[in-house]
């Protein structure tokens, strides 16, 4: 659409425009001119940095923080998912050997008791145990 079309030719509108144009707007004033140009001069003297440079470091810090938080969240979710699929982590070999030693010098019941206590201490709480699914941790023969 061209301005020629837009500017319209309604004679009444022209009359109204003439009335509007009869009055002259008040200007900004001489005092304001010096005030504004002083502000501009101050700004021109100030070291000018491009906008990308002003936002770079805050944006980089925010991105790193976001990355760390995201990494923590993904690792946590991954561990939870693996625990759901694979069951609780195996009891360490040292705990099993220690329980076997205890069984050798005492009896099998004490050895099993020691093994269960050590296993309970070593492994993290299993979410499946709460739902009634128990992993089978067998004492080595």
């Amino acid at each position, binding site marked *: *659409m061209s*301005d020629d*079309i*837009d*500017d*319209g030719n*309604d004679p*009444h*509108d022209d*009359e*109204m*425009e003439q*009335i*509007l*144009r*009869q*009055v*002259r*707007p*008040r*200007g*900004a*004033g001489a005092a*304001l*001119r010096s*005030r*504004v*140009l002083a*502000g*501009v*001069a*101050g*700004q*021109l003297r*100030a070291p*000018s940095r*491009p*906008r990308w440079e002003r936002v770079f470091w805050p944006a980089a810090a925010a991105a790193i923080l976001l990355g760390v938080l995201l990494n923590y969240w993904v690792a946590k979710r991954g561990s939870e998912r693996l625990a759901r699929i694979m069951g609780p982590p195996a009891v360490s070999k040292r705990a099993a050997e220690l329980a076997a030693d205890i069984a050798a010098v005492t009896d099998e019941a004490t050895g099993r008791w020691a093994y269960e206590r050590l296993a309970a201490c070593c492994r993290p709480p299993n979410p499946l145990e709460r739902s009634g699914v128990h992993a089978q941790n067998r004492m080595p023969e």
Partner: protein
Amino acid sequence: MENLSRRLAQGDPAAFAALYDACADRVHHYLVVRLGSREDADDVLQETFVRLARNRRRLAGVDNLMAYVFIVARNEAARLARRSRRAGCAGRENLPSADVLFCPSGGDLRAQEAAETVAKALARLEPPLREVVELKVYAGLRFREIAEVTGVPQGTVATRYRAALAKMRTWLVREQS
């Protein structure tokens, strides 16, 4: 104008003075109509030019400097209005009186009467219509430039302008009768 853009982008103070002389009066009047206060218009005009100086590198690629200054001034006015709302100050909805808006008539009764009539007619318009009239009649922008400044389609600008004139004409006829 292209040369002025280049000088502005290089940070030439004389170029900023030239830009001020070319458009400050028109922008100031637009701001007075929009904000309803000469003091606020003074502050916003100053902030507009300081912002132009701060982001002067962008001015090298500006095709229409006049429209660009109005865009920056409009954004600054909106920012001031938001700050005032957050601070709990109610914005001035009413248009200032004729003697604030227009040049003193110097005792000429007819000129004074015309100024009062125009101020009253403008005050009857909704802000979007008033803004278009202000930018067209007093800022001297074309519809294409007004569309650029206000961010509405050019056809809408033309429609608003005609609607504003019709509304003012109706009011004027009623007043005269």
